[in-house]
């Protein structure tokens, strides 16, 4: 059909717009010299070698990974049961939660930082913990959406009622029936959350700064000193994200919910 051409075209343009920079970055990270020519003058692996040999890079990478991973795990453990309770037992509170979610979208890092510095700095709690706390709130929208959709798709409320009538306690029903069914959905949301935190820059930079250098800060510092190394970091980052996205796509397909008949 001719009709498909419009979305196909806009789709192709968006892809081009997104992937042209990716291609340029990859080339630059492998280029010996690239100034006035259309393509670089030669290819080399030295920027990557230099990067991977830098202990500062490895430490920054490790810190980013640790911070993102731990925060995501804590967020899942706190937020998922809370969302479950609201959806199943207090659906009328959903409206309030949605406003809250909207608010967390609307409060950007810099603004959040001002408030957090005012309130919590200098009272003994390390600012990394404060930052992780802010991240936790920031993850609320993503984990809320993922959990909510999984629960609604599986009709969690009926399943809980059915399990109860069969003699299960709330806890038994949650662990044996709800958790296995939302597992893949939660996993997808967690990967998404992890990748968002892994890329966060503003909040950690303002609140903690050089005392806890993450990958993003390291990259920011390298931007001014060596474009090639910065590109190599970016490519490394892309590879990591490609792996995560691959996992997301794979797991978002695996689901116990009923297949719809066309």
């Amino acid at each position: 059909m001719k009709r498909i051409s419009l979305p196909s075209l806009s789709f192709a343009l968006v892809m081009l717009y997104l992937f042209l920079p990716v291609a340029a970055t990859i080339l630059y990270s492998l280029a010996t010299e690239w100034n006035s020519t259309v393509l670089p003058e030669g290819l080399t692996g030295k920027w990557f070698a230099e990067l991977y040999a830098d202990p500062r890079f490895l430490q920054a990478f490790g810190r980013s990974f640790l911070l993102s991973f731990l925060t995501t795990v804590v967020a899942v453990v706190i937020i998922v049961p809370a969302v479950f309770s609201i959806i199943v037992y207090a659906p009328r509170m959903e409206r309030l939660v949605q406003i809250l979610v909207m608010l967390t979208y609307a409060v950007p890092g810099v603004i959040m930082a001002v408030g957090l510095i005012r309130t919590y700095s200098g009272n003994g709690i390390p600012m990394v913990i404060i930052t992780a706390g802010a991240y936790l709130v920031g993850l609320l929208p993503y984990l809320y959406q993922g959990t909510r959709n999984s629960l609604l798709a599986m009709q969690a409320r009926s399943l809980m009622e059915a399990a109860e009538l069969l003699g299960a306690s709330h806890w038994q029903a949650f662990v044996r029936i709800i958790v296995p069914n939302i597992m893949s959905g939660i996993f997808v949301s967690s990967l998404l959350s992890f990748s968002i935190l892994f890329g966060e820059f503003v909040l950690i930079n303002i609140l903690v700064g050089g005392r806890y250098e993450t990958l993003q800060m390291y990259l920011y510092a390298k931007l001014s000193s060596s474009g090639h190394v910065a590109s190599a970091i970016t490519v490394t980052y892309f590879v990591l994200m490609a792996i995560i996205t691959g996992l997301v796509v794979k797991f978002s397909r695996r689901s116990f919910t009923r297949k719809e008949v066309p």
Partner: protein
Amino acid sequence: MSYVQIEHLSKSFHGQHVLQQLDLAIEKGELVTLLGPSGCGKSTLLRILSGLTASDTGMIYIDGKNVTDVSPKNRQIGMVFQSYALFPNLTVSQNIAFGLEMNKISKTEIQLRVQEMIELVGLVGKEQAYPRELSGGQQQRVALARSLVTRPKVLLLDEPLSALDAQIRKNLQKQLRMIQRELNMTTVLVTHDQEEAMAVSDRIYIMNGGRIVQHGSPQEIYTQPRSEFVARFIGNYNVLTAEQLKRITPNLSLPAVERFAIRPETFREQPLAGEDICLTGNIAQVTMLGNITRYELNIGDIPVLVDTLHLSFEQEQIGTTKTLYVSPKDVIPLYDTIA
């Protein structure tokens, strides 16, 4: 006291009365149907019976015990939901075994009882299938097996067949009734389908607007409706005013009520007894409804529906004059004007 007894039950949602001062009694082994149009409160009543919804006032007794404040998990009630609510992550066997595991039955007995149930509902060979791999009718039977395997005191069925095609529905009605009789299981069925209610019930409670408007055996309700609502809901009754009836049978002595109902299938071509009412009219319309042929007769200016078996003869033509007889005892006075 009956096996299941409900007394003065009331429930409001957001200031709206959903159930008003209901009384209900169910004997052991009975299949009782709550029948009514959507929004009449029948599903709410079922949920209150299961304990999933709390009532505002009233008492519920099961097997002589007051269970009004007992939690769902301790009420010993089995329930089949309209959506089946099968656990998608468990196989057929695991779904059925779930209730037994929760009640800490031994592994060997669980295996035995699950297998027994799978045979009873005819799902042999499907033990390892997941719910999503089953047809609607098969899912329904898993839900039934799952709720029966724990040997509940009462089985509740919330429109269990409404999502299925007509053919499968009729088959499952039969199976359901057979299993219920075999286990002598006290059962409450909720439905809005009067044919289903009549086909499977020992007794029917007809609900409208949060009240019970009539109850009795299918036969009693069908042949002796007390109100116009019941007459129209349960069948295709001709409802005539006293004035209309007077006009077509001037000599009949009638009780002093406003409306009367006559079933369309009680008209016959030959009189059975001397006192039979004789009516003559013109055929205005003929509809073939499968095993029934339905005539719309104009008697004077009063339209009357007449059902006959669909036999192999030619149908009578529109415009033909027809004489029919009906017994005075098939003219049912409708006492309740409300509801």
